[in-house]
């Protein structure tokens, strides 16, 4: 059985039918890319998975737990971390305090320390700036902090919402390299992106969303050569 199964999901914003019968699966260890244009519903799906939005119908199952019935604040301790769009770091708190909040649900001090060391090793910039107030970091550093904060919960799966948004090409490459490393260390990745090219390079499989429904799905390598995908999303 898949690690995360989303089935026949329907989400409304008032009267607007934002997500229409969306179904997809994420297997353990995979990197799944959820692609699509602005407003296609990618962020809405992630918010529904982690309980910030409630679906009208459909089911979301994570390792046998029904996430629709689980309150948002209980989901992280099941092993699911969500890096929200626009980073959403706690801008008044220091880098270190942000990271500590990432481990909010964990009890074992030694394990938390170990995660902190791992995060600092992966993002040396965060260690250099650990006492700096998060709001004063650059966009790329804030993205690293948001990812580091999510990793502090020691997740089995990490949901990344537009991690490359607003970053310079050099930083985009750096962020994608980090996602690859996170995946190689055994964490499953569900990646929402507008940068289809970069995403398909690191993904195993991909789903393409168009105005709230899944228009295409398949292996990332096949999609990269699909003429339809090429013309619509890869700009070729």
């Amino acid at each position, binding site marked *: 059985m898949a690690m995360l199964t989303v089935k026949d999901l329907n989400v409304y914003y008032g009267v607007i039918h934002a997500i229409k019968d969306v179904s997809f699966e994420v297997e353990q260890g995979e990197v799944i890319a959820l692609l699509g244009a602005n407003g296609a519903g990618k962020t809405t799906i992630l918010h529904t998975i*982690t*309980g*910030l939005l409630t679906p009208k119908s459909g089911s979301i199952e994570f390792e046998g737990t029904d996430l629709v019935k689980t*309150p*948002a*604040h*209980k*989901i*992280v*301790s099941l092993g699911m*971390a*969500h890096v*929200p769009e*626009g980073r*959403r*770091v*706690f*801008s*008044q*708190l220091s880098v270190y*305090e942000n990271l*500590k*909040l*990432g481990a*909010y*649900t964990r009890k074992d001090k030694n394990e938390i320390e170990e995660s902190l060391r791992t995060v600092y090793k992966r993002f040396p910039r965060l260690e250099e700036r650990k006492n700096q107030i998060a*709001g004063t970091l650059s*966009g790329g550093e804030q993205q690293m902090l948001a990812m580091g*904060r999510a990793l502090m*919960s020691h997740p089995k799966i990490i949901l990344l919402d537009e991690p490359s948004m*607003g970053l310079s090409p050099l930083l985009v490459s750096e962020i994608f390299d980090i996602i690859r490393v996170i995946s190689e260390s055994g964490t499953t990745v569900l990646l929402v992106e507008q940068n289809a090219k970069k995403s398909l390079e690191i993904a195993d499989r991909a789903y393409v969303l168009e105005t709230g429904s899944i228009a295409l799905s398949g292996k990332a390598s096949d999609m990269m050569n699909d003429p339809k995908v090429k013309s619509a999303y890869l700009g070729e």
Partner: protein
Amino acid sequence: MELVKYLINGISLGSIYAIIALGYTMVYGIAKMLNFAHGDIIMVGCYVVFICMSNLGIGAIPSIILSVVICIALGMTIEKIAYKPLRKATSLAVLITAIGVSYFLQNSALLVFGANTKSFTNVVTLPSLTLAGGELIISGTTIVTVVCCIVIMLALTLFIKKTKAGQAMLAVSEDKDAAQLMGINVNGTISLTFAIGSGLAAIAGVLFCSAYPTLTPFIGSMPGIKAFTAAVFGGIGSIPGALIGGILLGIIEILGKAYISTQLSDAIAFAVLIIVLLVKPSGMLGENIREKV
């Protein structure tokens, strides 16, 4: 020497405002609402102490502890019944509800305790301090009030900086959704904030009634409004702002009474508020609202 005396009185009164203002400012910071029933919690706290001491013959300290416990329970109950169902409602609906809760508490107290003014017994038995060869007398109540205020401020600052629950409060006050993604229980955190604010209101009430010992069901509303003013004055949402706003308001009020006019002292205090808000709308230590990129 007169001036020093007035300043000390002002700091003492201001300390009480500051403790009450903490309740307004913390609740605003976290739940983004103005809890206008906060002042009436003070009144309930005072009545609990009064009944315990005068009718039941319980000692001062246990009476205060009981009063704090009852106010905490009351604050959390109000939050759960009246405010929690309105979490997604407009801020105007919440504001009107808060005013409604305030009237409800005042009139319930009128029903239960009657309209007669009760004479509150000072809980402070500390002797006065005589300084400068008898020219300056600082009452025990003043000393206890100022010390209480300092201890509460330090304890609260440490709590927020050093504990997990305190950090969760900061996280919720900045971004509720992101806080939930960290596994923080937002409703629990809001409830804790109401508990702390209401417990502090009980302490402030006892100190207030010890200094001004007439107890009526409406006693909470004026210090409540003034403490709210102090919170806005210092910058709503900011804990040091509540302290500075409270102390300054106390000093302005006492100096206004002493040098200008007893009747006009409240008008002067509120006029200062208006001027501060005209010059700096976010209050003295208020955050400038920044656009998030």
